[in-house]
């Protein structure tokens, strides 16, 4: 039992986590004939709360309730993992990344997320504008425009050998590389890091 707890509290390696995530694809198909995808939950939220007679949000969202239940589960899963089987040690990140982030002004590396960025204190600051408002907007707008996110395209789409999903995934990565390697440094300087 102690050994099991030891193992559960350690960070899980990619070759454990990746296949478990991949198994979500057949699990959803077999459990209820459902295609894996998470960004559609954001669309359902719009369809339920502010459809505003926009054709894009006029559909039977009640049939897609399962998707909202699934993401509620993801939130609860995050709570359980963090509160009951969390890693007692600091996150180990690559030395190069750590050094580059330190140059950008990040000094706190103890949690899963940098406390210097993801805190309520930053809400009404330029930091908050960049990391929460602009970042979140790009995620929501981009995934919907692309017709899916990493789960819908990179995992479900490529798993079912659909080339448009491969194209989408390549552009997800290109956008990420460009932001990280070119824009993020100047942007972080600008918001006060």
């Amino acid at each position, binding site marked *: 039992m102690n050994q099991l707890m030891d193992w559960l509290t350690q960070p899980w390696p990619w070759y454990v986590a990746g296949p478990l995530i991949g198994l979500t694809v057949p699990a959803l198909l077999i459990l209820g004939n459902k295609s894996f995808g998470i960004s559609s939950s954001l669309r359902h939220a719009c369809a339920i709360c502010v459809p505003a007679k926009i054709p894009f949000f006029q559909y039977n969202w009640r049939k897609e309730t399962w998707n909202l239940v699934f993401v509620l589960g993801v939130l609860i899963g995050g*709570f359980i993992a963090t509160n009951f089987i969390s890693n007692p040690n600091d996150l180990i990140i690559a030395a190069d990344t750590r050094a580059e982030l330190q140059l950008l002004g990040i000094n706190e590396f103890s949690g899963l997320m940098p406390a210097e960025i993801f805190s309520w204190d930053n809400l009404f600051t330029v930091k908050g504008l960049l990391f929460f408002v602009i970042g979140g907007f790009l995620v929501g707008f981009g995934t919907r425009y692309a017709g899916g996110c990493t789960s819908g395209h990179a995992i479900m789409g490529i798993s079912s050998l659909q080339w448009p999903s491969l194209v989408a995934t390549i552009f997800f990565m290109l956008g990420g590389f460009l*932001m990280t390697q070119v824009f993020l440094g100047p942007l972080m300087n600008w918001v006060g890091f």
Partner: protein
Amino acid sequence: MQVLEKNTKDAVCDAPNSQDSGERGLALLKYLILGILFGIVFVKAEIISWFRIQEMFRLDSFHMYGVIGSAIVTGIISIQLIKRFQIKSTSGEKIIIPKKEFRKGQVIGGFIFGLGWAITGACPGPLFAQIGSGFTVVLVTLLSAIAGTWVYGKFSDMLPN
């Protein structure tokens, strides 16, 4: 071929519910449990971590590539097995995987999402797990992502597609 491939035009969205029979109440519990397991993996593999996403885009670690790559390989094998053995869903229906058609949005929208992914350190799934992990300010990011989705829906007719 037991697995049908439907055209997306008659599907409602990118991750459609292809099940014909309705599900309510307790029948939805299985998706909650699956989501919980999924969220636990997200945290335990640290892929909800902003630091890990930075590592990935700085090419300093194999971790995220290993996670995504092995998830895809597992998915491909699973779908091939479902097709080969004509496995049906638990309600006895043929398993349907809607076909995705190429649109310009996968290039432009995909690129825009990538920019946001590197800033927030999260794709939509991890956003929910981050909130559950106690980074409650990510609720603001989530609301902004919902706003972004709404703005896309509002102006989708005017965008190249």
